């Protein structure tokens, strides 16, 4: 009772703080377009401009210009003379510039402001025109067929094995997604400015003259030469393509603009960081809700789900704060969830039929890989190719799964050890087999010698066939409709199976073999059915995975996939004896979500280090370890 009261008080305090932050944030973001915001920005801009023409940066550019002149004059007079002349020039310029400081407060900045606004408008027009022209150019080139798009993935395919090797040793090679950008690459070297752009450039130049005039009137020491020197810097300062309040603000701060508004600094910062305030506020509200409904949430989802779910939300918030593209990250999460889900689903029949976690999933994966390779070898592509690969994969996996089931029936009671061992063995065995496979397709073979490549591009076969099917964008998040539909279909079929007579019998066998025996159900048969289903789903799973990944990865890559799938379902709340389909979806989402967000966030937190790689290994293996500690399941209340 006391505990719940304390929880309520804590939640209330957090909520109050959150509401205050959100209020400030909303105020801040709404002020960005208001006269106050515009005034602040304008003030800062003027200050920054003056700073740029008279401040440290400008002095340096004058100095270097003078030095260059001195150098040119003293050319051929020996090193010492040149050094002396350069030093003298620098001292002279610095002395002349030292009294250039301008007190902006006492000046009428209206002409400068007007001129700058006009310059900004002109620059905006110019960059719009430039973009339109470039797009037209690209379109034109594509129509002419001069596209290099197909070359890029081929390059990647050659480079990929190296990357995969390194990551493979680390345990999980699937974590670095190749870029999925499908924009065709066009050589832009032939692009030249259009007449319209030239006209725009002319206007920009005229407007710059106005700004120069305004600046000179403020700072009489400036001459035409100096202004020409500063033209680029000023243009960069006042406008950059895709400018928003935040980018402008940051730029002016860098140029020393913040000192222009000593009294409104707090307000300016609230306006600038308004969105971050809102994000933190929302995070705090979620935290307050967690504290308040702790019991209910734990009862409904279980403690592990709450912890990992909370971690996921935290990662999202940090990602937003660091201005990482949350939409991209979420898109990635969804794709990863879809591509891994079938393999996680493969754990369900294994667990339900009593063989526990099927860590021998690589057996099924091998079947699927063979299906995919055959599809490429025979030159099938597109949807028929994908269906062909799946069918072949299913047949091979069914046979292998049957034999595997026979083995497991002989070794009842120690399935975890057996499946792990079998999983590792088959991968090692296949390493030899891949080397001697008599495939002829050049996509599959090494260019020289025998054996299959480590990484085979699915470009000619069924790359992204599910991901691209009916895919659409919503709020920046790409939804791979086909992939999700396929995942849903597989889950639905599995659900139907668990409700069939055989499915019910299979679950009884896993639940209580003696009970099943007493009803005349053949325990061995049901276990074989479960094993076969799991293996078949493994085969389908790797094909779905590969089409999303874009490549088929051979050799040691499948080794850890079983462990990853097992971890995902354990995180979803399954135990080694009980599993539901909902746990597949929850587990896969959380596992892949945390992995996808974890690395970029770690990179953003500690920039310029190799922390991302370390974090990736830590996070993924940490999750697996945590999941395995939950394999016994939480006590059922």
């Amino acid at each position, binding site marked *: 009772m006391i505990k719940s009261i304390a929880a309520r008080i804590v939640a209330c305090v957090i909520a109050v703080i959150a509401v205050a932050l959100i209020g400030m944030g909303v105020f801040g973001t709404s002020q960005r377009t208001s006269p106050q915001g515009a005034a602040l920005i304008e003030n800062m801009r003027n200050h920054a401009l003056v700073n740029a023409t008279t401040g440290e940066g400008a002095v340096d550019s004058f100095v270097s210009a003078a030095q260059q002149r001195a150098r040119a004059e003293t050319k051929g007079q020996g090193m010492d003379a040149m050094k002396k002349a350069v030093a003298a020039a620098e001292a002279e310029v610095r002395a002349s510039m030292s009294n250039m400081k301008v007190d902006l407060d006492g000046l009428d900045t209206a002409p400068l402001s007007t001129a700058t606004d006009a310059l900004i408008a002109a620059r905006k027009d110019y960059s719009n025109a430039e973009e339109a022209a470039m797009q037209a150019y690209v379109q034109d080139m594509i129509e002419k067929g001069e596209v290099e798009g197909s070359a890029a993935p081929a390059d990647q395919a050659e480079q990929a094995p190296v990357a995969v090797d390194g990551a493979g040793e680390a345990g999980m090679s699937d974590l670095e997604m190749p870029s999925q950008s499908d924009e065709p690459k066009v050589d832009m070297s032939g692009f030249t400015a259009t007449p319209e752009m030239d006209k725009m450039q002319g206007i920009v130049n005229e407007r710059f003259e106005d700004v120069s005039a305004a600046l000179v009137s403020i700072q009489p020491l400036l001459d035409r030469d100096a202004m020409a020197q500063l033209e680029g810097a000023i243009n960069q300062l006042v406008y950059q393509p895709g400018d928003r309040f935040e980018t402008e603000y940051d730029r002016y701060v860098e140029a020393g603009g913040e000192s222009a508004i000593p009294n409104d600094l707090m307000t300016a910062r609230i306006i600038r960081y308004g969105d971050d305030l809102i994000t933190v506020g929302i995070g705090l509200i979620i935290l307050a809700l967690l504290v308040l409904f702790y019991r209910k949430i734990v009862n409904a989802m279980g403690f592990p789900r709450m912890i990992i779910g909370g971690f996921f939300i935290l990662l999202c918030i940090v990602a937003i704060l660091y201005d990482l593209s949350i939409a991209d990250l979420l898109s990635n999460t969804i794709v990863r969830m879809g591509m891994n889900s079938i393999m996680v689903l493969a754990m369900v029949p294994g667990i339900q039929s009593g063989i526990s976690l099927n860590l021998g999933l690589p057996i099924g994966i091998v079947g699927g890989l063979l299906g995919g390779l055959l599809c490429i070898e025979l030159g099938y592509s597109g949807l028929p190719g994908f269906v062909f690969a799946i069918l072949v994969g299913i047949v091979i996996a069914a046979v292998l799964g049957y034999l595997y089931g026979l083995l497991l029936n002989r070794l009842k009671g120690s399935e975890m050890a057996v499946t792990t061992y079998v999983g590792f063995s088959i991968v090692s065995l296949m390493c030899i087999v891949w080397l001697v496979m008599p495939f002829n397709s050049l996509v599959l073979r090494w260019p020289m010698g025998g054996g299959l490549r480590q990484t085979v591009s699915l470009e000619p076969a069924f790359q992204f066939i599910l991901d691209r099917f009916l895919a659409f964008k919503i709020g920046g998040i790409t939804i791979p409709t086909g992939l999700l539909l396929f995942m849903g279909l597989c889950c639905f079929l599995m659900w139907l199976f668990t409700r069939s007579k055989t499915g019910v019998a299979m679950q009884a066998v896993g639940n*209580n073999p003696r009970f099943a025996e007493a009803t005349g159900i053949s325990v061995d048969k049901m276990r074989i059915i479960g094993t076969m289903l799991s293996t078949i789903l493994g085969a389908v799973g790797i094909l779905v995975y590969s089409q999303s990944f874009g490549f088929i990865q051979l050799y040691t890559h499948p080794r850890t996939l079983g462990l990853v799938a097992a971890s995902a379902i354990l995180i979803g709340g399954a135990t080694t004896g009980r599993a539901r389909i909902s746990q597949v979806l929850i587990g896969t989402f959380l596992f892949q979500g945390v992995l996808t967000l974890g690395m970029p966030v770690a990179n953003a937190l500690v920039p310029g280090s190799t922390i991302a790689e370390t974090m990736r290994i830590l996070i993924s293996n940490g999750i697996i370890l945590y999941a395995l500690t939950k394999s016994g399941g939480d006590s059922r209340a």
Partner: protein
Amino acid sequence: MSSEYILEMRNISKQYGENAVLTDVTLNVRPGEIHALLGENGAGKSTLMNVLFGMPVIHSTGGFQGEVLVDGESTHIASPHAALDKGIGMVHQEFMLLDGFTITENIKLNREITTPSIVSRVFGKNLETLDMKAMRKDARKALDSVGMQGLDEFMPVAGMAVGHKQFIEIAREIDKTGIRLLVFDEPTAVLTESEAEQLIGVMKNIAQSGIAIIFITHRLDEVIQATDSVTILRDGKLVESKQTKDTNIIELAELMIGKKGEAMVDLPERTSPLTDTFAMSIKDLHVDMAGEEVQDVSIDIRKGEIFGIGGLAGQGKIGIPNGIMGLYEATGDVKLFGEPLELNNAGSALKKGLAMVSEDRRGVGLLLDQSIEDNIVFNAMQVNGEYLTGLKPIFTQKNGREIRKHAKRMIEELDIRCTSSVQHAGTLSGGNQQKVCIARALTMNPKFLFVSEPTRGIDIGAKKLVLETLVKLNRQQGMTVVMVSSELLELQSICDRIAIVSEGKVVDILSPHASGADFGLAMSGIKPTKEGADV
């Protein structure tokens, strides 16, 4: 000896929760006597011994009332180890021997004789060298004293005959110095007749050397043969404590079973009397069920009767239904309604209209992780293909609506206390789990129903309801019911005839109105003759 008794347990009472298992029991043992402790299963023998040995189970459930005096001194025995310090030893029913060790090592386990060595002088006593010679001598002496002269003391225990293991166990207890009281927990249960006789001889020898023995058994003839005095418990109460020479086997049997109690349920009259058509004829049934072996059982069960199978635990009564239902390897001839029944095939037995409520609810009887409704319809779905929709037989789906409807009806009829029909079976209480098991058997619409220990571990109200349900099924639907139970009173309440099983064989088939003495004798394997017992 300072006191007349080596052990006095005065007015011992013990409760497990609300359930009183011992009420005011007194046990007095003189030095050097063999004292029999007699009682049915659940009479309180084991609990009394647990109190004596200070087992953790006693302390963790709130201790006991009463007083224990060893050698006239009031003592508090906190643990089995403390009991050993007081000179009280136990010969266990299950052998507590390490298979890979030799006899000597087993006998001297944790009491090894050691000599100091260089290592032990540095690292302490735990690293002293074993003095094998001395240990061997001790082991030899102990083995000789239990009459095992022929046994090599360096033989490993693994693979030895059961009887020999029993004697090694005794030898180990005797070897302990200062032993004054030994408890033998049903030592003859696993022995052959000649071994049992040898054991009784050994016990008498031990007693003569001044060590008192408490002999727990249910074999009445052995009590008469071996013991000096006897204490009889029934339902946790002391019935009688007397000198063996003042009593006889029939009196003991009567005291152990007691008079027939009040009927637990009302038995309505049958509308039509029983005929001599047989629902099931069992001939030469052997069942290989560990701990409940059935050897050569032949019974005819009449159509429409309630047939009881009683007897003590471990004698084979439970093996009979389990063997017939195909849960354990069985041989013999079983005819169901005149048709031969295939043994060792659980599916076909169920298909033929047999059903069984297992004694092992949590092991065989239930899918603990699944819902009540799934448990109830499981057999009917798997065996008869009921409660399914879809394109049978290839594509099938559970018929959720039908299942729920049926489960609701069963829950109502059998008064299963649950939150809903989707509650997991594992979260129900024992009595309600039993009702779910019965509901599943009834869902099969059986013609012939086995119920094995249906009231084990459930409270009195649930017990009554279970028995009433059986009677109702029998009287209203004419279902033939075979009830296996350790509780004689239950069998007497509802059965038409009761077969008593001992050592895997049917000793006798009695009327429920037969005397307690008849039941008691039958349970210890003695078939009463017309004139009385063969004392």
